[in-house]
């Protein structure tokens, strides 16, 4: 018998439902993290009513798993109102935050609203954390938020990108998460900035450090040897070099622009003046995107590491200007993964 999860995935693919949607409520932030991919802009944000209207549209379109992210979402005064509204619409709701603005009242309210998790960015011990956030005292504030969320039984996941700055803290992060019974997710992949500037990648781990990460069994399973590697490269058994973006995954910007994913900056339309149905199901761009397949990545097909490739089409687009381009970030990781096998 088919599991509920497989049945839902099958139905979502068949109907191209935006089952998973990440909604950026703001680009404003009170920290200046070194690895942040957002570009400072002074564009106006959707107001409360506009966000609610979009949530109505998403619920009708079949989105079940919703995530609010930023920027720092607690800078929005209407955040709790929006969370409560989303839960009324029966979304499974998750929040991404740096935690520095979370108060006791927020934690209490979030507990009542019923979230599936608040994911808090914690980069390591004080020194590394504040070197990355570029803000004194941010470590303490984030720890206070973690304690409050734990106290009020709000599920927490700690998440951090692994940079050459906090590499030596990753074991501490795991220990800290386990001690507090928090989930954790550490990721060594750094995305270029949204304007294609790749200078952030100077913080990327060296090949040697990446190898350490990928061979550490304590780290999340998804990071380690995701694909079996073979030297026999034939198209039918290589991984899909495209992802769920634009198929069952959607991203929405603070201005209402719909993307296949917030990492894949290929705008499909704007929910302020278009219906979700017209953007997602009828637009030529969305249809074109869904037609891309591994065979369109001509350069990658020649690569001996293709079976270990975890290519992100969005990063490829930012790095090369082409959605089918060869991503340097993915190449580096695939090479290491291949050697580990």
């Amino acid at each position: 018998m088919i599991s509920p999860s497989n049945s839902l995935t099958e139905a979502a693919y068949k109907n191209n439902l935006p089952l998973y949607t990440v909604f950026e409520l703001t680009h404003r932030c009170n920290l200046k993290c070194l690895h942040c991919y957002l570009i400072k802009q002074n564009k106006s944000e959707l107001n409360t009513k506009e966000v609610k209207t979009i949530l109505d549209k998403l619920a009708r379109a079949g989105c079940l798993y919703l995530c609010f992210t930023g920027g720092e979402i607690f800078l929005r005064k209407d955040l709790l109102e929006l969370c409560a509204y989303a839960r009324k619409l029966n979304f499974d709701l998750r929040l991404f935050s740096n935690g520095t603005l979370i108060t006791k009242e927020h934690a209490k309210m979030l507990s009542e609203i019923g979230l599936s998790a608040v994911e808090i960015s914690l980069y390591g011990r004080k020194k590394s954390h504040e070197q990355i956030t570029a803000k004194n005292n941010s470590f303490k504030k984030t720890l206070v938020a973690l304690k409050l969320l734990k106290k009020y039984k709000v599920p927490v996941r700690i998440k951090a990108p692994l940079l050459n700055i906090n590499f030596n803290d990753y074991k501490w992060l795991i220990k800290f998460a386990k001690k507090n019974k928090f989930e954790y997710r550490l990721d060594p992949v750094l995305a270029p900035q949204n304007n294609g500037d790749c200078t952030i990648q100077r913080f990327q781990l060296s090949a040697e450090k990446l190898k350490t990460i990928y061979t550490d069994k304590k780290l999340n399973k998804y990071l380690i040897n995701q694909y079996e590697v073979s030297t026999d490269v034939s198209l039918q058994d290589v991984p899909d070099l495209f992802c769920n973006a634009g198929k069952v995954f959607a991203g929405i910007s603070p201005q209402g622009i719909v993307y296949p994913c917030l990492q894949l900056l290929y705008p499909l339309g704007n929910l302020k003046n278009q219906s979700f149905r017209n953007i997602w199901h009828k637009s030529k761009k969305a249809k074109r995107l869904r037609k891309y397949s591994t065979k369109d990545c001509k350069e990658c097909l020649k690569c001996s590491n293709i079976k270990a490739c975890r290519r992100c089409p969005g990063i490829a687009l930012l790095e090369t200007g082409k959605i089918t381009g060869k991503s340097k970030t993915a190449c580096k990781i695939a090479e290491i993964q291949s050697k580990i096998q």
Partner: protein
Amino acid sequence: MLISHSKNIAWRVIDGKAYIVNTGTSCLHSLDEVGAFIWQKLHKKCSAAKLVDLLLKEYDVEKTVAADDVTGFISELKEKGLIEIQND
């Protein structure tokens, strides 16, 4: 006895089936078409007798069979933490 959805759930009906997440456990459950029909009625507090009546109106089924099905269904949903039951 009044039955309604639990607080910590998220759900959608897709292609006639109901998919329900228990957000406390992250477990995903699915209900077939008849289950999805009853599930949607539990959006507001509802008695078991009312559910049986609604089933009889919608489907060609014997009353005793419908009553047994509703009892079993409620017990299953309760066990999975998807509903709350209040005494009148």
